[in-house]
Every structure is written in structure tokens, then in C-alpha cells.
């Protein structure tokens, strides 16, 4: 077999105008594949400028603690250690990456300042002539802590009297325009519950998940003769990284140049501003090229994971399978800092109540701070875990009603023209058709009226008396 394609089934949406394309829709060889199979593709770490220095981080050994003192004496004595950076070396140490789109407050230090809020938080950066010396130096940094109570559970974090994780917010939640969560209010769920034949409520939980790209997060910064810095990075977002880095460094934006675009897997994990600011400061202070790349352990335990989520779904259901109300309480475990979680939580809210037309929807989506590794964007951001909960819920309802799980979905499926819970009119829908197609693929019999349903024609549904 030379390549696999998925059969395109044109019996669905057959009325779409046929278009005569030259290269669109055809199997075109990937432009990067030749480089990959010959080993010639250049990833950022395949660069080795002369006099390259290496950065390794000394990280917090506590979930939550005050830093009483940092002793660099032994670390500086390690042969090959050139310099050790602390928060005092970072011009604008406290930042938040989404300030570029107006999200505030700045809530995360590049290097810890006075306090650590999660296990593995960076405290000081050891710059050395070899990687081994940088590791050795990082191991010899001594930090004096005063342990503080930590909170690791989202609901405990929101309970009265919980220790405050992040003082920049003042509460253990991100505040959305004065609200303690991102809300959806559509119809009246309470009367739906009162009128329902059944009310079902279940809870779902996930744990943090690592992006696990085979290439870890990193960059090499090379000072240029004209005083600029050239940053070779595996960032997923060149300008996003550049703009944030410039803000942290307090330099004009045009002092930085990012060269990248060849990334050994991202999946959302390389949107954080994790390595570039420190590497740039090190390069500026030493006037030498600097590499800062995560070890596999750092990638696993320190880089942002997909957030753990806890989701409660309560449904009002009629005996015929119609879901008339859905109430959702969703907690995103953001860890100690915002990063991209305020955005992901809003995206999660917009996705509710799933691809179904439910006339009464109430959702509170909380972006919660806890003393763990900050979570961030990952493939399916804000949606993946919600889908696990929503589609498990649909299966459970079908079981409770002894209904065909696909018919339950078709009865409730959203169609063109439906008003979604976030008050956007649905268009270009195709849930009905993918369900019909999947049923056909596995020989799951659907009665004629279900096979004739269409996303474009609500009337076919109304004839059944909905």
C-alpha cells in the first residue's frame, strides 16, 4: 500500500455544487517528507553555533512555599558555570501570555520571586559552558523555604478558607468581567427539571495529560552583529512568542527575530512562553549563543499539561428521549497560573451543551487555580474532556431509557437554523449525517424516519411530532 486515504462519501450532501479542482482534494505529497526520510530536515536543536552556552533550571521542590533565601555559592563554584540568573535579572519578570489579546492580570513570574506556587516552578537559571556543568550547578543551588499550605483539588480550592494560590488574582479563580466563572444562561433549566419525566445527574473527572511531543520544548538564541537576537525555536506561534518575549525583556519588538516553523510535534504544548525569555536574557548578559531545551523529565512534569477537568451534568429528559434542560458545572484545573486556561474555559463554555439542541441550558465554567503545574492548551482545547463527559452522559441516558443510543442522539441533534446555547445560530451542521454514516458503517439499523433526517431540514423532524 502506498498511502491510505479515507473514502469520501458523496451520497451525503449530494446537492453541494460539484467543483472541478486541479490540486485541491487530490493526494499531494507532503512537501516536508523528503527532508524527514533523509534526515535533512533541520529542527532547532540541529543548529550548533560556536561557543554555545547551556541553561538548566533549579526548580521548586515544594508545592507552595515562601522563599526565605537562595544560596548560589556552591553552584557558582562548579567549573564551567558562567552565570546564574534570578528574577532580578529579568526586566519584566511577571507576565501572562494572553495579555496580547487583552487578558489580565499579569500573574506569573518568569523566575520565582519570593514564593513558589507549584512543584517544579523555575527559581534560578544556571548558564554554563557544558550541559553537564549546567545540571551540576542547578543541583547545587540551595533554597531555603517556609512551607505554606497547598491546595490541589479544584473544589477545595474554591471552598471558604482555602489557601490563596495566586495573589495576583486574589481568589482561586479567574474572574470573567466580575463573575467568578464563565457562564451560559439560556432558557430556564429549573422549570425544565420540574417538568421532566426524568432527571439524571452524573459526575466526570479527568487527570492531567502530557502533550508528549517527541521533540521537547526549547530554543537556541544567537546574538547578532547588529545587536539583535536571533531565536531558533520550536514554538507553535512565532509572533506570539516574539511579542511576549519582547514585553518580558522590555526591548523593542524589532530587536528579536524568531526562526522556526519546523516542530517535532506540538499538540498545543509549544504555545507557552516557556524557554525564550530566559535564554534571551542569558544571551544578552553573556553575549554568547545560549541553548535552553527541556529534558524529557521537564517536558513530562514541568511543561503545561492538558488540564484536569471535573464536570457535573444534570439533565431534564422526557420519556421520548428529548433532553429539555441541561445544567453543567465545569471546573478546569488551571494549576498555579492562567497561561491559556481563561481562554480554554470560555471555549469549553461555548461548546456546551454539546452538538444538541436543548432549549434550556445553564453552565458555570470555573477556571480554578491550584498548586500544581500550570495547565494550558492542548489539541481539542476546552472540548476534549467535555466531549468525554457529554457523550458518556448521552450513553447513560439511552441506557436509562432503554433507547437506541444513536436514535437518542438523532432526536436531539442540532440542525441548521437552531439557536445554540451561546446564542449563535447553527449553520453548516452535519451531526445527523455523521451519525447516519457511522450507523451504516457498522450495520446499526436505523428506522426509515431516522435515515431520512437531514441537518438542513428541521421539518423532517417535525413530522415526527417534535
Amino acid at each position, binding site marked *: 500500500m502506498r498511502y491510505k486515504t479515507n473514502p469520501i462519501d458523496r451520497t451525503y*450532501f449530494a446537492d453541494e455544487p460539484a467543483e472541478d479542482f486541479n490540486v485541491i482534494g487530490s493526494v499531494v505529497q507532503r512537501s516536508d517528507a523528503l527532508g524527514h526520510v533523509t534526515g535533512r530536515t533541520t529542527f532547532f536543536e540541529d543548529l550548533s553555533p560556536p561557543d554555545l552556552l547551556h541553561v538548566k533550571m533549579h526548580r521548586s521542590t515544594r508545592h507552595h512555599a515562601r522563599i526565605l533565601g537562595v544560596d548560589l555559592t556552591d553552584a557558582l563554584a562548579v567549573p564551567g558555570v558562567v552565570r546564574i540568573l534570578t528574577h532580578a535579572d529579568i526586566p519584566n519578570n511577571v507576565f501572562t501570555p494572553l495579555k496580547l489579546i487583552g487578558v489580565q492580570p499579569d500573574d506569573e513570574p518568569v523566575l520565582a520571586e519570593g514564593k513558589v506556587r507549584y512543584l517544579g516552578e523555575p527559581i534560578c537559571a544556571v548558564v554554563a559552558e557544558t550541559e553537564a556543568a549546567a545540571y551540576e550547578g542547578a543541583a547545587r543551588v540551595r533554597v531555603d523555604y517556609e512551607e505554606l499550605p497547598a491546595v490541589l483539588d*479544584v473544589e477545595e480550592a474554591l471552598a471558604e478558607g482555602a489557601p490563596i494560590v495566586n495573589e495576583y488574582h486574589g481568589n482561586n479563580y479567574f474572574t470573567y468581567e466580575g463573575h467568578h466563572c464563565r*457562564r451560559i444562561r439560556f432558557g430556564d433549566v429549573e422549570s425544565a427539571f420540574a417538568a421532566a419525566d426524568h432527571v439524571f445527574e452524573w459526575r466526570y473527572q479527568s487527570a492531567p495529560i502530557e502533550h508528549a511531543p517527541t521533540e521537547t520544548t526549547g530554543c537556541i538564541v544567537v546574538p547578532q552583529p547588529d545587536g539583535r537576537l536571533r531565536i531558533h525555536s520550536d514554538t507553535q506561534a512565532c*509572533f506570539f512568542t516574539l511579542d511576549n518575549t519582547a514585553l518580558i525583556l522590555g526591548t523593542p519588538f524589532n530587536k528579536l*527575530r524568531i526562526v522556526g516553523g519546523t516542530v517535532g510535534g506540538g499538540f498545543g504544548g509549544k504555545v507557552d512562553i516557556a524557554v525564550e525569555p530566559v535564554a534571551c536574557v542569558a544571551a544578552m548578559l553573556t553575549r554568547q549563543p545560549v541553548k535552553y531545551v527541556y529534558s524529557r523529565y521537564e517536558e513530562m512534569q514541568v511543561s503545561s499539561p492538558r488540564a*484536569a477537568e471535573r464536570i457535573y451534568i444534570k439533565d431534564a429528559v422526557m420519556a421520548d428521549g428529548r433532553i429539555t434542560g441541561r445544567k453543567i458545572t465545569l471546573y478546569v484545573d488551571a494549576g498555579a497560573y492562567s497561561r491559556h486556561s481563561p481562554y480554554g474555559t470560555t471555549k469549553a463554555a461555548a461548546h456546551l451543551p454539546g452538538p444538541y439542541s436543548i432549549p434550556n441550558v445553564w453552565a458555570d465554567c470555573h477556571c480554578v487555580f491550584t498548586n500544581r503545574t500550570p495547565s494550558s492548551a492542548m489539541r481539542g482545547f476546552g472540548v476534549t474532556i467535555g466531549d468525554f463527559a457529554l457523550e458518556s452522559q448521552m450513553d447513560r441516558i439511552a441506557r436509562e431509557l432503554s433507547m437506541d443510543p444513536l436514535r437518542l442522539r438523532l432526536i436531539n441533534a442540532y440542525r441548521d437554523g437552531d439557536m445554540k446555547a451561546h*446564542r449563535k445560530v447553527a449553520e453548516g451542521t452535519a451531526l445527523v449525517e455523521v451519525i447516519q*454514516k457511522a450507523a451504516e458503517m457498522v450495520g446499526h439499523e436505523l428506522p426509515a424516519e431516522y435515515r431520512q433526517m437531514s441537518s438542513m431540514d428541521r421539518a423532517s423532524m417535525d413530522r415526527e411530532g417534535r
Partner: protein
Amino acid sequence: MAKLRGRGYASVNYPTGMNLGGDPSQALIHATTTGTFVVSLSSVDLGQGLKTVVAQCAAETLGLPMENILVDTADTDTGPHCMGTFASRGTHRVGNAVIMAAAEAREVMLAVAAEELEVDAGDLETDGTGYIQVKGAEEKRVHITDLALAAHFTHGRTISGRGIFLKEKNDPVPETGEMDPDSCQAHACTVAVVEVDDETGVVEVLEMHNAYEIGRALNPAMVAQQVEGGAWMGMSHALFESTEPYYPTRDHGPGDFNEYLMPGPADIPMYHNAILERPAGNGPFGAKGIGEMTANAPIPAIANAIFDACGVRLDTMPFTPERVLRGLDELRGNHH
């Protein structure tokens, strides 16, 4: 002790082309003097194949073969602004920006060809192999290489174009959550068939049937890559993955791939995939984008298949053998 088989379903939608940040993407395109069109971007290819897809969009719009397109990307000195590759915006945003730039360049290309051939630009067409020709009189034609040379050295014209795609930033209404956060919705329905070993609690995924609706499959082989790679990731999330296996405590966190478990090549199920196309009015050639969503439906499909197989409802991810066995114990009335 037995191996119990079950089937589970999940159907999902997924928003693509998010605009909660309002971030647009730009593209510039210009012809070299020998008729190669260089697409300049700052967007990032994570391995999903963005460089290839945007080259297809440029070639299609210009009416030229793929060999005439070069994509130069991810250098902030030379590429115009792109916020980045996330929020399923690559294909949608960058594809649209490239089409707009290529359409502008095509207009110049046809105008110069009209001068060169002394005809009306409206009478010209591209043949897809590199010629610009007069409709109905194909012998009257000029090759793009000759045309690009003439544009530069004879006519003093730059064959170039600019593109940007912006859907304005949307701010949700705080009271109600009213918002317009995305550009399209793509769809999927997954059916998983699993086998549960009721002695060990091990779940094996035997089959996955995936029906997708993604607007337009710009490159069907790369769509297949996303569907299978994502189905594998979904299966991996469902059965194995966590950096904190005893969440919410932080103990026993894995540090490398020997400890962070994922399915290997021996664990992959049989896949049966199908693609439906309902082109989106605002997508590049109708495409909605697919890469991000492909891990989503497999997870609940597997959860539901496990229930179908053995009656254990797993409401906590991942669905480890330990959780399956605890569920089976509970069903059997053995409480420890």
C-alpha cells in the same frame, strides 16, 4: 473468566477557526523572474502538513502546478504576521489568507499576460500545467516562466499579492455567555469495539469506525493521517495517559516514555474511516479543518464500549485496568 466484547458510540462537533482572540493571519506572495511563486508566511507547521496545504491553496488559486509554489514560513523578519498554530486556525485562517494573496497575484499575472498576448485579460485562463492561454484559442498562450521574465524585464510589473483573514475578536456577554467564538463546526461520529478482560481489567480496542464531516478534504492522504493519528491519541488518552496518575495528588508522576504509557504499534485497532464533505462558505475551498478534533470522539466511544462489554461505567479518565477491576468488583458486590 472471560473476554467481554462491547460496542460504544460517540458523536461530536468541533469549532474551527476560533476568533476569541481576534487574531488574523497574513500571507504575501510574489513571483520570481522565472515564474516560481513564493508564499511568505510566519505560520508554523507542527507536522500536520500546513506547508503542503497552503501550497495547494496557492497552486489552485493561481491555476499553476504545485512545482511552481514555494512556501517560505516561520521567520518573523520575512513573514507577515500570524498569531500562531493553535485553536484550529491553521488551515482555516492561513488557507484563506493565502487564497486572497494568490487571487490578487493571479489578477496581475493575467493582466501582464493580456499585455504580452495583446488580448483582453477577461479572455484568459490558466491550464493548470503552467500556461496562460486564450479561452477557445489555446494555441495563443504564454508559459509562466516567460511571462514572469517579461513582467520583470519588459513590462516593469511585480506579480504579487497580499492576503489577510480576519474574523473580528468576539467578547462574550458576561451575563449570558452570548458569543460568536468560531468560524465553522466540523463533525464526527466514532464507534469503538472493545474487549475487556474481566480477570486483568485490560481493555483492548479492536475496531474504530470514524465518520467525519470536515467541509472539504484538501488533501485526503493528510486527512487520513489526522484521523488515524488522532484516533490513536484518543485511545491513548482513554486507556493510559496521565502525568499525575493519582490526581489530585502529585505522586508517582512519570518522567519518561518508559513510565508514561501509550499504546504501541501492537495495540492499534482496525480503522474504518469515511469522510463527508459539506463545504463551509467561509472556509478555504470549503474546508473547516480537522487536526485538533480527532482525539475527541474516541474517548467516550471507548468508555461507552467498556460499559457495553462489562457493565462498568468509567466516569474517571484514564480507564486503567485498576479502575475496570474496581468497577467489576463493585458489580460483583465485593467491596474491599
